[in-house]
């Protein structure tokens, strides 16, 4: 057998161009097109003027190219001009909402990941009585759908006097999610024991081992989790909608829905609205662009939904 294979090496199974493969590639191309078309359409509309959109709705290029939509979304256009171009004149305090979104998402992400990783370490690496029971309780929390806790949490936030504050928006998810704990515990459990033992022999305490050895080792799962948590809290709408009433605590998603509802008499200000959606979505696209490789690689591992 060996003698034979030395002369006639096993030929790699070549992928011949076939009708089936061509069809499969066509389907793939269609999927990419459907995925990306809306992004292009946002840009195309944002750069058009409202009057021209009405006259020429099917044009694949921006019609009557203008930056007016962006100017309205950013609130740098005078009210008179905005109304003349089909805007509501209501304006969007974009920078305020952007800052609110950044504060809320950062607060949630940093605290949640930090506290959850501490808990995950305690569940995975420390010895204490009742550990598995407490962990089981946390796991059961995975089963409670978000909607169920929203109303009672609103009542609580109201009683704490935190309605219409950024802290009120961040608080419920700031300390932990069962998923984050579960996910990080999974990682810590797979770290070889020798790593910890070596550090112990070097005289490090458990606290130091966690911060200096295990946490740095977990940088990839922590980063993935952090980026996805950031995206999730940035995109959240229901909870911030419940809690915030005024500009002081309004985040971008809520502001966008308000902007959409401010329909001027002339009809929806589509170019302004598309400019605003583009600006609101841009930070996440950039964030994703920076970490895409790692996230795409490890997304199956996370199982976040």
């Amino acid at each position, binding site marked *: 057998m060996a003698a034979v294979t030395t002369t006639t090496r096993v030929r790699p199974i070549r992928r011949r161009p076939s009708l089936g493969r061509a069809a499969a590639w066509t389907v793939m191309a269609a999927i990419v097109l459907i995925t*990306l078309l809306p992004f292009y359409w946002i840009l195309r509309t944002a750069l058009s003027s409202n009057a021209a959109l009405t006259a020429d709705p099917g044009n694949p290029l921006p019609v009557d190219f203008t930056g007016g939509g962006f100017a309205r979304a950013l609130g740098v256009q005078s009210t008179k001009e905005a109304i003349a171009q089909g805007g509501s004149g209501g304006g969007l305090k974009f920078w305020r909402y952007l800052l609110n979104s950044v504060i809320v998402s950062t607060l949630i992400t940093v605290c949640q990941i930090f506290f959850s990783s501490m*808990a995950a370490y305690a569940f995975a690496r420390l010895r*204490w009585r009742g550990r598995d029971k407490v962990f089981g309780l946390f796991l059961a929390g995975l089963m409670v759908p978000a909607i169920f*806790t929203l109303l009672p949490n609103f009542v609580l936030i109201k009683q704490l006097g935190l309605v219409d504050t950024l802290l009120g928006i961040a608080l419920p998810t700031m300390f932990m999610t069962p998923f984050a704990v579960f996910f990080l515990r999974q990682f810590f459990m797979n770290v070889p024991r020798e790593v910890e033992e070596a550090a112990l022999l070097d005289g490090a305490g458990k606290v130091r081992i966690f911060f200096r050895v295990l946490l740095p080792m977990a940088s990839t799962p922590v980063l993935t989790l952090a980026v996805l948590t950031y995206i999730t809290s940035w995109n959240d709408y229901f909870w911030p909608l419940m809690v915030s009433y005024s500009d002081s605590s309004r985040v971008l998603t809520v502001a966008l829905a308000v902007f959409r509802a401010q329909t001027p008499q002339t009809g929806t200000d589509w170019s302004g609205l598309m400019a605003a959606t583009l600006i609101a979505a841009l930070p996440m696209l950039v964030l994703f662009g920076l970490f895409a490789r790692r996230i795409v690689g490890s997304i199956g*591992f996370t199982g976040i939904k």
Partner: protein
Amino acid sequence: MTVASSPPSRLPLRGAERAQTEPKSRRARAREGQGDGPLAALFIAPAMLGFLVFLLWPTLRGIYLSFTRFNLLTPARWVGLDNYTRMVNDPIFWDSLKVTVEYVFINIGVQTVSALAIAVLLQRLTQSAVLRGIVLTPYLMSNVVAGIVWLWMLDTQLGIGNEILQGLGFDRIPFLADETWAIPTIALINVWRHVGYTALLLFAGLQAIPNDMYEAAKVDGASEWRMFWRITMPLLRPVLAVVLIMTVIGSFQVFDTVAVTTAGGPANATNVLQYYIYGSAFGRFQFGYASAMSVALLVVLSAITFVQYRLTQAGHTDLG
């Protein structure tokens, strides 16, 4: 729960280290046979606080509130099963449940099939990370942004969707303004946003299937189609089951897209359960009734999860 339990860690701790990391008394107690108890308590305290205050307590309170009349301003008043009898006799509740189920069926059906197709194409056609990244991009949008964009693209008068339809010789469709079209349209918008993520989860499951199996089948002359049914599907089933449970639970909670596109209309055609709950609580200040409906939703979701676990034997797989 099989936890790899740590070996007893009673290695002597050095004084300097001890002083640096923890108060002495805690450390001293920790050494005396309790394992890492005090340290663990410290590490777990913030997460525990969050768990008790914002997850466990609201869950119990939600159930309690469902037996009360409560408008936020005056204290909750116990009314027994009033909210539940009202719910059973409320045609709008049943209607919104029906609409929600319709939404879930369309959303899950289309999403699962397309995600599976995308995942298989990604695996069998190319392993390109760029393609995987592209497929994920809609997931980066919020539901609000996705809703607004599609609202525009599907606008009856000015939307590109209807321009294309007309160009192809069809009639214009009032996608979000028509009672029969609104729910399927919203379901498909959410498929657009979520399908890439689901596809990547399935793709990860596919990666676990050894490539040798496909090569061997190919040598035996099996077609791609046959390999899909004989290799891919059976081996992917546990992953598929877990992903399915997660997407069903997720899609029952549809709210954002409805809120920005149709606001429940036309004529309650898209008044999904969450939207009705929200309206009852914040529109009419009936927090007790809204809580009762949330309990109903929780029961429905638990039942679905349970049945799915049983049917697919997903309980044997690791949720990770």
